């Protein structure tokens, strides 16, 4: 297993090197800091979402759910819209990046915890109902957001729209530093919980029998998940193409690959493996799209496409089994 992790690390290093050094037209003292910033942002987002998804799948005992699928990304745009709505675009533009990040983070954590609590209660252990309710509530949040956006001034609407696609081109340095700290805290907590998550993945009964009451760990894990997803989304915008249908399947692709490359139930292996694959998918994908194919399409659209197909495959395969 550890050899596979090393192999993944090597692949990631190759992607990162390719991303930074291939196809440079311009002076290095401009390109290098620019690309390194983008690389750091991609890596942070990839790792945060991968770790969050692994934890989420463990606490909901399934392999096809992701936090984004449950409408979490949609919350981000809703919060942005509400902020622009209440402050006006001038007031919104006056917020410092750090303050905006803090507002976003706290609002997303509060709303996200509420959302998950409601969903988990509604579903009552029925996984299909959980996923479906999550997707539909995601659609509802998105629809409500769009409605709100139509009610605000067209010029203020522009402000929201420019922020509502995942973007890695204009990363603010301060923002990057703050979210790096937040993600580091989240990942550190996840790593600290790894053995307890192993126990939880045995099932609720077994976990209770082994002295690990699931309810408390669920709450703690949800907190970590919200922290990770919220910081990733506040940094880069939501990883969803946003037009219609369910939101991004990035986490799903990552965990599906992690289970294939490192087939293990131990979080000590799954967490780093998923984190590395998350980095590979985002950095490598961006490398392919930008440098090799010169496509103008955002990576998120392709992820949505492939991820949706993977989701359908996993869902139907699970049925057949």
């Amino acid at each position: 297993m550890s050899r596979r992790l090393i192999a993944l690390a090597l692949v990631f290093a190759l992607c990162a090197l390719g991303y930074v050094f291939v196809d440079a037209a311009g002076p290095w003292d401009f390109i290098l800091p620019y690309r390194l910033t983008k690389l750091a942002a991609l890596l942070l987002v990839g790792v945060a979402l991968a770790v969050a998804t692994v934890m989420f799948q463990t606490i909901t005992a399934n392999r096809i759910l992701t936090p984004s699928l449950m409408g979490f990304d949609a919350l981000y745009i809703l919060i942005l819209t509400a902020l622009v709505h209440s402050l006006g675009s001038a007031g919104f533009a006056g917020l410092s990046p750090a303050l905006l990040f803090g507002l976003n983070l706290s609002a997303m954590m509060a709303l996200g915890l509420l959302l998950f609590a409601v969903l988990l209660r509604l579903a009552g252990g029925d996984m299909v109902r959980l996923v479906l309710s999550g997707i539909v509530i995601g659609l509802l949040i998105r629809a409500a957001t769009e409605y709100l956006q139509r009610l605000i001034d067209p010029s203020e609407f522009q402000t929201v729209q420019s922020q509502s696609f995942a973007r890695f081109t204009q990363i603010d340095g301060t923002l990057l530093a703050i979210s790096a700290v937040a993600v580091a805290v989240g990942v550190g907590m996840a790593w600290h919980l790894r053995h307890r998550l192993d126990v939880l993945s045995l099932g609720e009964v077994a976990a209770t029998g082994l002295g690990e009451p699931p309810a408390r760990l669920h709450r703690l894990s949800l907190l970590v998940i919200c922290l990770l997803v919220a910081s990733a989304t506040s940094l880069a915008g939501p990883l969803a193409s946003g037009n219609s249908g369910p939101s991004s399947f990035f986490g799903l692709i990552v965990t599906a690959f992690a289970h294939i490359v490192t087939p293990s139930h131990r979080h000590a292996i799954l967490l780093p493996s998923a984190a590395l694959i998350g980095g590979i998918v985002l950095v490598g994908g961006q490398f392919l799209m930008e440098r090799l194919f010169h496509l103008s399409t955002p990576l998120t659209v392709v992820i949505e496409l492939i991820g949706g197909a993977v989701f359908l495959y996993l869902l139907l395969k699970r049925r057949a089994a």
Partner: protein
Amino acid sequence: MRWRGASGVDPVRALGAAVLVGLILLSLALGASSLSLHDLLLTPEGRALALESRVPRTFAALLAGAGLAVSGQVMQVLARNRFIEPMTAGAGQSAALGVLLCTVYLPAAAIGVKMGAAALAALAGSLGLMALIRPLPPTQPLLVPLVALVYGGVIGAVVTFVAYQGDMMQFLGTWLTGELSGVLRGRYELLWIAALASGVTYLIADRLSLLALGEDAARALGLNVGLVTAAAVAAVSVVTAMVVVTLGAIPFVGLVVPNLTTRLTGDNLRQALPLTALFGAVLVLAADVLGRVIRAPYEVPVATTIAVIGATAFVILLNRGRSGV
């Protein structure tokens, strides 16, 4: 309590029709230039305005609403599942893909060609969905809408991808968000084809009701299952494609309305379909009128309003089913 259909004036239909008439009058009276109904009908300029813009717009809402609601009900029979409707389940996105590909590769194509491309793409999309959900076990009814929504999302991602590569992103909104503000005389008549297609489903309503019993039972009762299914899928695809081509996608009408009417009439489609068409027209027209009033002179697209209503209703339906089980 189930009331008897057919004979006599039943209260629900009468109420529905009255609301519809009221909405039609409102829709005719509302617009950027404020004219009273009296002016609209009796002055020459008023009549010209009405014929050019307000009557077409009202008709477009009525036809689209009725057609979408009916096609949703038919699709629910075909899939034997209450939580599915064509616009969000791949047919709508496929139709958009058809128009988009046509616009990118055959920019000079006539509207008829685009319409045909949209209808064919919607047909292919619906058939693909049918093939996907066919093997799903009937014991897990929520699996069908889940697969359908994700399937629709995947096709939607293909649409976004093609739009980016073809530099068509700004047009995408017109097909993915249905709105009526651009409807003028000469720009909505395709919807009559949708109305025709929904009319066809009424002609085969009894056969579709048999189909709802299950394919084996229907076959044993002497039904040509293949032919009826093909006709129904074709009708659903045509309605969806025509609405997408003329107005853009309007989600959830086909989900919310049939679930409401079958609560009133039961599963007999001959009774349910007219009521479904009526309620569908009421829903879309009401959403359009609301969208015109709430932030005049700007407008909220009808699809946005209905998405909020529809998604809320979907969440309620999902959890209502649960307490019923």
